[in-house]
């Protein structure tokens, strides 16, 4: 699991763990670690909300493997395209999830992967466009853990 929690969790969430339940809703505040990681990528540039779509299912069954798709509105032509997409989280031990570098040849500015979210937290995707403007989307993801959890190694 992505987090460092290793307490023995009992079956059926009698101690509170239950099916992985992820609820996505819009958010605002940005905690320090997340914003530091974001500054690393964007520098002093302004990050605007928009153009980016962050798809995480409203209900996932396990925080170990959460499907995620980021797409950016862009014509993807030689002079107007998405350079890169950066995905961050707030509460895993490390704020970065992945950096994805595309270019005009991608044809479509969209990447999908599977991520680990073992705790309720914010996920942010930021796109850098060819004109070096930054655009973002954020989702607040609520994760509760799965039933039938076995011992850690």
């Amino acid at each position, binding site marked *: 699991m992505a987090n460092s929690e290793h307490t023995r969790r*009992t*079956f*059926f*969430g*009698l*101690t*509170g*763990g*239950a*099916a*992985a*339940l992820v609820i996505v809703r819009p958010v605002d505040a940005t905690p320090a670690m997340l914003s530091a990681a974001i500054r690393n990528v964007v520098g002093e540039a302004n990050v605007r909300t928009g153009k980016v779509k962050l798809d995480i*299912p409203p*209900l*996932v*069954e*396990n925080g*170990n*493997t959460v*499907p995620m798709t980021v797409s950016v509105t862009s014509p993807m032509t030689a002079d107007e395209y998405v350079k890169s997409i950066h995905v961050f989280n707030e509460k895993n031990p490390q704020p970065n999830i992945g950096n994805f570098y595309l270019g005009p040849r991608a044809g479509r500015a969209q990447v999908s992967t599977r991520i680990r979210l073992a705790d309720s937290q914010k996920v942010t995707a930021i796109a850098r466009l060819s004109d070096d403007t930054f655009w973002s989307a954020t989702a607040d993801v609520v994760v*509760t853990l*799965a*039933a*039938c*959890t*076995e011992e850690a190694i």
Partner: protein
Amino acid sequence: MRIALCIALLTAMAGAALATEISLDQRRSGYSFMSADTKAMQDEDTANPGMLFVLDGEALWKRKAGSADKACADCHSDARVSMKGVAAHYPAFEKTLGKPVDLEGRINLCRSNHQQASPFAYESRELLALTAYVAQQSRGVPIAAGDDPDLAPFVEKGHALFVQRQGQLNLACANCHDDNWDKKLAGSPITQGQPTGYPLYRLEWQALGSLQRRLRACITGIRAQAYDYGSPELVELELYLMTRARGMPVETPAVRP
């Protein structure tokens, strides 16, 4: 709140009388209880991490091993032909041992008797990969385990284990998987506990795992002492579950939460 609900549900289950077996037209794979995203992961081979193990199994199938210096392929040639439908009949009765063996056990018998190699450990990547590769050849084939009359007493033992209350929660497998499969426990579907997809990729494990591993997790869940890997009880439970799932298609390698 959720804790209170859980306990209430468990108590209700423990109180209920055991129902009879699920009829054929009502049998539902764990697949049908999953979210669209998890289904998609199982449906498409390039998205299904279980297929990575199947690929490993295919490579192992062709690799010579043991002092006999023979590969599985040397005796069984093309698995797509020789192994088609085999997994749907397991566990099967093994005359020399006078008891049923599951697919993992059968493969290990070939390791020791025919390849003269040491058997693979339970849940080792090799054994899971080979089992997944062999079982995948039965994908879509209806389960038809338990036909052999020699198996009858073992199916009965497995059934007895299935309906026997055990553990600190004093629950039988049947309390959940026969009587309450349409309900949820702390938000997650209970399901019928059908063994159609093993070995399968469980998101919780982030790896492939055997039916025995799954059963051990459920037994630990009711706070009972789990039987050891390879123990007669686990094979009997596997056998009973496979006869209970007769007619359902094999899904290996399935994906489950």
